[in-house]
């Protein structure tokens, strides 16, 4: 199916860009008139995926984070968020609630759980040494209500 509108952006994996990334996606989809909850759900899911690219994908290095948003007929939104970082060797395990590879005790291991429950669909593809791609989907049903 062909999207009726789309947007691509890329930026450096600096933590100061996390807020820029989620706000940009929110601004792009504003024409669909999402309500407060839908908008907040999408911003949160985007923030999770982008933060994962920065924290886990590239770690201390600086690389590029790629976002591609497509809007389809019926107010369906597809957001893909990608890095060319270290990749994930066991995606199934990484997606388990509370699993985190961070050892400093400051990460909850709930990023994927939040993406899954705040969006309609979540797909993760990853190759160790090549990078990770996360695809999120949600339909806007509220029309502002």
């Amino acid at each position, binding site marked *: 199916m062909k999207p009726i509108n789309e947007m691509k952006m890329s930026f450096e994996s600096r933590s100061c860009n996390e807020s820029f990334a989620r706000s940009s996606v929110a601004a792009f989809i504003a024409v669909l008139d999402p309500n407060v909850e839908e908008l907040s759900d999408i911003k949160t899911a985007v923030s999770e995926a982008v933060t994962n690219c920065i924290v886990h994908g590239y770690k201390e290095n600086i690389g590029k984070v790629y976002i591609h948003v497509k809007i389809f007929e019926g107010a369906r939104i597809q957001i893909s968020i990608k890095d060319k970082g270290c990749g994930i060797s066991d995606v199934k395990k990484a997606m388990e609630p509370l699993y985190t590879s961070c050892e400093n005790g400051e990460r909850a291991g709930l990023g994927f759980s939040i993406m899954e*429950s705040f969006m309609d669909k979540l797909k993760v593809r990853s190759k160790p040494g090549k990078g990770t791609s996360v695809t999120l989907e949600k339909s806007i049903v509220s029309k502002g209500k």
Partner: protein
Amino acid sequence: MPVEIDIDEKSVTAYISGEIDHHNAAGLRSKIDEAVENAYPEVLILDFGGVTFMDSSGIGLVMGRYKLMKNLSGKVFVENAPRQIKKVLRMAGIEKMLSEKSGKEVLV
């Protein structure tokens, strides 16, 4: 990332406002921990009344402070979280405890 800290005899209250994400969490953490390590309170109150956005970094922040307070045999209360912030907190099982004393959200 603004946080205002009130210290009294038994408690430290951190009034957090703005957005809690990975970028902002480190600064918040160090300010809150500094106050806790100076005051050794029985209760740490995290007031989320002014928080406009939060992702899992905020859950990490709450859980990390929970561990810190547990080491001091203290408690953590989360107060005034707006609806959307509560939705995120709920992912971690930070549930409303119908405590007669506080009626506050406690980490369980």
